[in-house]
């Protein structure tokens, strides 16, 4: 899940009877499954929540380029290098659609960057973990993109039109990403003992952070309840986490790997796995900036932005000069 713990400003979810006619009409359209479009009236809380969620999602795509980009120059074959480049390029493209979707809500991309760089806006906790071996690249595709898909598939039905439509395209690409990750790991577990050990080590490190991507249990969260009422969120964090575990455990088994959770076992009665609790103290530390790579990730983004200021200024200046020249030529012609 690329958006975690998104706040809504709501103290509690209000009933239709408590709403004024305009808001009530809005809520009834949402309840009926209609899409809300940029120029239409929407509650301020809905707009703000969407900006938080979509920008957090976009920032995650952008920051997410870094841990994977870390291995492009070391990819083991030309084909793997090309696949990884294409994947990271897709992530940048996802960031672009998402920033555009957020811009329809009245915030600029530069403002969103500023919020990222100042620490005001967050990105997914998962990208604050390091990619230490080549197997980590496969594990990110398999686990991280797998977890993201769990969340993003329902978001295709989100009430806000631009976000839902961006998600349709993103989901198609994410499922390719997940398959390529799994395929890379499959190749490795069929390889030498050292390669298989590398894959197990990656699973050991990425398993728990992947489960944390869904965020802590939100059954009692007023923000989640409000987001669900607005159809910005469709499932609880625990539901998605359960679904992810149930999908992923057989895949790990197929790879011949051991999931690093002693409490993991099939529960016939519930028709799903029982599993251990992630270390939420670690999660809150990562969110608070104390993850293994928080400082590097943010510094890399700030450096890219600051070092590139002259480039962006240069292009703007050229565009202005060219416009002036066109205007002067037009006057001269008249």
């Amino acid at each position, binding site marked *: 899940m690329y958006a975690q713990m998104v706040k809504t400003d709501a103290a509690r979810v209000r009933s239709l009877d408590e709403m004024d006619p305009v808001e009530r009409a809005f809520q009834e359209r949402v309840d009926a499954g209609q899409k809300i479009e940029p120029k239409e009236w929407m509650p301020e809380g809905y707009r703000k929540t969407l900006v938080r969620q979509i920008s957090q999602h976009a920032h995650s795509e*952008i920051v997410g*380029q*870094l841990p994977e*980009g870390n291995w*492009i*120059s*070391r*990819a*083991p*074959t*030309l*084909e*793997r*290098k*090309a696949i990884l*480049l*294409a994947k*990271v*390029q897709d992530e*940048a*493209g996802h*960031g*672009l659609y998402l*920033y555009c979707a957020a811009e329809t809500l009245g915030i600029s*991309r530069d403002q969103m960057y500023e919020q990222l760089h100042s620490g005001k806006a967050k990105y997914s906790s998962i990208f604050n973990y390091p990619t230490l071996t*080549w197997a980590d690249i496969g594990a990110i595709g398999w686990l991280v993109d797998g977890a993201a898909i769990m969340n993003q598939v329902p978001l295709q039905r989100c009430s806000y039109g631009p976000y839902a439509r961006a998600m349709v395209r993103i989901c198609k690409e994410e499922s390719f990403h997940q398959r390529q990750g799994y395929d*890379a790991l499959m*190749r*490795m577990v069929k*390889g*030498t003992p*050292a*390669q298989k050990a590398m894959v197990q080590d990656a699973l050991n490190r990425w398993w728990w952070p992947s489960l944390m991507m869904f965020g802590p249990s939100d059954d009692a969260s007023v923000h989640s309840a409000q987001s669900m009422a607005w159809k910005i969120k469709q499932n609880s964090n625990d539901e998605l986490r359960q679904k992810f575990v149930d999908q992923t455990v057989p895949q790990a088994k197929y790879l011949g790997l051991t999931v690093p959770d002693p409490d993991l076992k099939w529960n016939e009665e519930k028709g799903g796995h029982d599993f251990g609790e992630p270390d939420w103290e670690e999660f809150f530390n990562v969110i608070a900036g104390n993850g293994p790579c928080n400082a590097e990730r943010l510094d*890399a983004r700030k*450096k*890219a*932005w600051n*070092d*590139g*200021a*002259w*480039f*962006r*200024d*240069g*292009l*703007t*200046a*050229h*565009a202005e*000069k060219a416009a002036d020249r066109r205007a002067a030529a037009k006057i001269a012609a008249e």
Partner: protein
Amino acid sequence: MATAALEPAVDRAALLEFLLRIGDNALILGHRVSEWCGHSPALEEDIALANTALDLIGQTQLWLGLAGEVEGKGRSADDLAYLRDGYDFRNILLVERPNGDFGKTLMRQFLFDAWHYLLLKALKGLTEKRIAEIAEKAFKEVSYHLDRSRDLVIRLGDGTAESHRRMQEALDDLWPYTGEMFAADAVDAALVEAGVIPEPQSLKAGWDEIVAEALTEGTLKKPADGYMHKGGRRGVHTEHLGFILSEMQFLQRAYPGATW
């Protein structure tokens, strides 16, 4: 993929040397460009540069794949990319220059693209079918690379005083590495004679024209043609290549024989 399709009269050793030269250019430049991934000044640039790198890696697979066939020792494109040492690499020195700031990366790309474009354009019209086919595909991609890098060089040259200064500095620094593109040796002579490649010097006038037009429009000053560095085409590189290879080849070297 039968080697029989290659013209039998062509000197195999010379052909192999040419394929390594053109393939290694794509490989090393693709590597350099991909170093920007996630670090460029604008999201659109991240996407465009990844695209350029992806094209170049794709071209590498084709050129080095053919090189392996011509060599006839059962080496794949991956074997050639990952298991040769620096002295066996044949790329020109320009493409292994460090990225520097984004202006230097763009200027390097432009100076290379203008030449690459002309070379591929010539190759696709020549007699060696397998080479012409790869050149045809690569030419489409490189035409776009050139459009993009030329446009940015012009806009940044004629942007702010700061962007102008950076582009001029990049141009001055990289200029001494452009001469190697037009250098010729016995390998070139044999292949020119066989009608496989164009005379390297014959690309110079076209390149001068593309470059001069862009520099003029971008208000940049063309440096004087002084001393030109060379050596890459015969395997004598700068210190930078060793670091590129130690990074690029790490997994293949650390886990010999493993498949990925």
